[in-house]
């Protein structure tokens, strides 16, 4: 069974904190993605990676960075959390030349 695991289901952080969201996939997928999901805005791509140590900006990268040191792990970093980053964060992965994305269960982040 394919699996994308996000380290936390719920997180509450204070404004200005550095926040790490971790994602691990066990399918040996090349591509990994971070999205945020907000009501009325759908899923918006923050960053994606198609290989270890490679990263590409998505549609809304401002305020975020990512790290991919190992193929199976993709981390999203909020350098200085702000209240407008309160959202549901979804990690996904896919094979290099395949279109289907597999999603984790999401991390609901609240910044207070």
């Amino acid at each position, binding site marked *: 069974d394919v699996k994308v695991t996000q380290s936390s289901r719920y997180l509450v952080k204070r404004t200005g904190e550095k926040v790490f969201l971790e994602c691990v996939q066990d399918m040996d997928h090349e591509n990994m993605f971070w*999205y945020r999901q907000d009501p*009325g805005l759908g899923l918006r*791509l923050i960053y*994606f990676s198609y290989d270890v140590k490679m990263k590409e900006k998505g549609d809304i990268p401002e305020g975020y960075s990512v790290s991919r040191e190992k193929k199976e792990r993709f981390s999203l970093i909020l350098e200085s959390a702000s209240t407008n980053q309160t959202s549901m964060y*979804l990690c996904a992965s896919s094979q290099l030349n395949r*279109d*289907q994305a597999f999603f984790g*269960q*999401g991390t609901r982040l609240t910044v207070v």
Partner: protein
Amino acid sequence: QQQVKQSPQSLIVQKGGIPIINCAYENTAFDYFPWYQQFPGKGPALLIAIRPDVSEKKEGRFTISFNKSAKQFSLHIMDSQPGDSATYFCAASGGYQKVTFGIGTKLQVIP
């Protein structure tokens, strides 16, 4: 700018009804059009997908209709059930595996 426009944002139907969700895209480079289903507290999961070389694809009670010239595609759910209540996202991708999602439709099927 929104590359994939989805409507409606919410939909309520009676059990047995046929909800229809519509999407339109702009980028003619898109060549893969999936629909994802998301239940509360879960991540989206692939429901059904179509490529532009066919006009319709059916899997069980779910059907995608695709109109390449109009750059539109839609999801139909036949004989809808309360268990189909979920949020549905259309999406499109091409080339770089970068999937663009619609804003989602929250479907409620009333018993």
